[in-house]
């Protein structure tokens, strides 16, 4: 990462944190309750307010430090920093993988943990650019291992697939318990 990109990222982060803490400060009256006649320190509002005030003070001080750092740059760097938003573009790159992840999550109650995990691992392996058969086998084996370890052996609570109900009773029970 270039130093100018890093500083752009820091500036954007400082602004976001300042805006977030200002929003929280503004929301204190509507999002917490105040009981008349109760001591200040016993109010439900007291503790969140202390946290938000602390957050705001540190966010302000951090913003100030970033601003001072930016203003100490020479003119050439300043132009570079304001022109480039490369770092902020990077922040959106995980969104693609968030979509894949949530698709996987939504697929589990339909396909069941085993099938959804196999599909997730194989498709993600292909998406990552691995084309060798050996890699796809490793990917499928990893998926199977994870399912067997967590669902079959450790009996972690993961919902069963909707299509399991279509199976004969004994098979459906077996699939629900193990996969």
């Amino acid at each position, binding site marked *: 990462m270039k130093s100018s990109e*890093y500083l752009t990222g820091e500036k954007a982060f400082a602004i976001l944190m300042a805006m977030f803490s200002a929003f929280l400060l503004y929301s204190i009256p509507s999002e*917490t309750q105040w009981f008349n006649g109760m001591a200040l320190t016993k109010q439900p509002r007291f503790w969140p307010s202390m946290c938000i005030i602390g957050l705001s003070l*540190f966010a302000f001080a951090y913003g100030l430090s970033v601003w001072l750092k930016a203003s100490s740059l020479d003119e050439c760097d300043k132009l570079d920093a304001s022109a480039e938003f490369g770092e902020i573009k990077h922040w959106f790159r995980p969104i693609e993988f968030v979509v894949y992840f949530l698709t996987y999550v939504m697929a589990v109650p339909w396909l069941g943990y085993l099938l959804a995990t196999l599909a997730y691992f194989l498709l993600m392996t292909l998406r990552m650019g691995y084309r060798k058969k050996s890699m796809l086998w490793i990917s499928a084996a990893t998926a199977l291992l994870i399912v067997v370890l967590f669902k079959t052996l450790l009996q972690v609570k993961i919902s069963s697939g909707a299509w399991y109900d279509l199976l004969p009773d004994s098979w459906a029970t077996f699939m629900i318990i193990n996969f």
Partner: protein
Amino acid sequence: MDVLLQSLDTFTRLDVWFALLAGSIGGVIIGAIPGVGPAVAIAILLPATYSMEPIVGITLLIGIYGASMYGGAIPAILINTPGTPVNALTTYDGYSMTKQGRARRALTLAYWSSFFGGIFSVVCLMLMTSIIAQVAPLFGSRDILMAAILGLVLVIVSHRGESLIAGVLVFLGMFISTIGMESIRYTKRFTFDQSWLNSGMDLITVLLGLFAMSQAFVLLIGNDSKVPMPDLKGQSKREGFYDLMKYKTVAVISASMGVIMGIIPGVGEFLAQFFSYNIANNISKKPERFGHGAPEGIIASEAANNAVPAAAMIPLLALGIPGEALTAMMLSVFYVHSIIPGPNLFINHADFVYGLYMSLFLVNVLIMMFLLVATRPLLRIIQIPQRFLGVAIMGLSFVGVYSLRNSLVDCMLCAGFGVFGYILRRLKMPIVPIILGIVLGNIMEQKFRAGMARVNDFTDFIDRPISFSIFVIIIIVLVVHGRNIWRGYKTKQAKQTTATDQ
């Protein structure tokens, strides 16, 4: 004595031994893979341990915690990439030794140093038990509140050069801990009329997002780098042990430093190895060798960081205050099984405490035995393609978060925190302060409310000897930190003036 025998009885059980083996071997493997680390592994395994008995679950997690640092030394020494962040200093001398054709010697030295640090720390923990058991009950709500504040202050000041952002993240974590229904008046706080926020944000969801998902994103977005296969043939396995014997003083000082730093909440492995490395450098007869393959450098780094896990158990068990992210995660396992760490733990669950000590001891022995025979196969693990690792971590994160309550919302939250963690990683900002903010913030609010019954004004918080002593320590820490910042500022100004004059 009865309690000790009762705790030994635990180790006749197969499930405990399975947890010991799985934790030790799994931890070494996890540590040896650059980019995974114990925090990711523990966050993923945490929900699975809820259904286990407390001693089994904690043993598994402790195994991973302790073993990962052993394993992390392997890539640090062989490919100049620390397996876990706390092995960073090992690269200085370890990789230099590899370049000089002494890789096997560096590895065995790292293993023996880690073993020494680990066992030294467990012995210290055992010896201190009677003192801890006597001192811990003296801590009241206000004392624990002050200790938690000290922990937060140390978290902030120990992030040198990034204290302000550490402060932002600590308070953000504390704020997150207040979301949801509060337990006294049952009023909603910052739920924005969203029913899914009524019970607050689950620590596991946040943890998995910040540690596991964000790391998965980093790996998925990055590139696979070709890792050369190191050659260990024809090198002696014993030299590392002889080196450790030769530099006993360095080993003892470093392990002691690890114990001290482990006990202090909020400090942890980084400062332990940093200080011990500097001390080893200062007392060395050949300080010029440091950074160029000095065995003392490896001893200092590895003995110090492996002494921390057992020592970090002291504030956790005695006061219920976690010193860093990993013990903060373990705290949730205690709570799930209604074992409340704190002053009464040594009275109500003494067998559990001794069982924990035994687990820590056995974990170190098992890891050492495993490493002495399995180093060569472990080298293959370093070569797992990074992006495939990202796919696996994301898949494993699903297990962790979805198994909590099969909720899509939890997964969305986890992904959201993952993106936030990814941004923090991009900007090289610390993640741990948020987690400690959440855990310590929660403890602080509880103790603050409990302490309020005996408090008329704020000076009553420090009218007890313990709380007053901790308060004085907080003031000293803040003054020293302020002085360091001022000195740094003056030095920087002097340098700028000199540069301008030239």
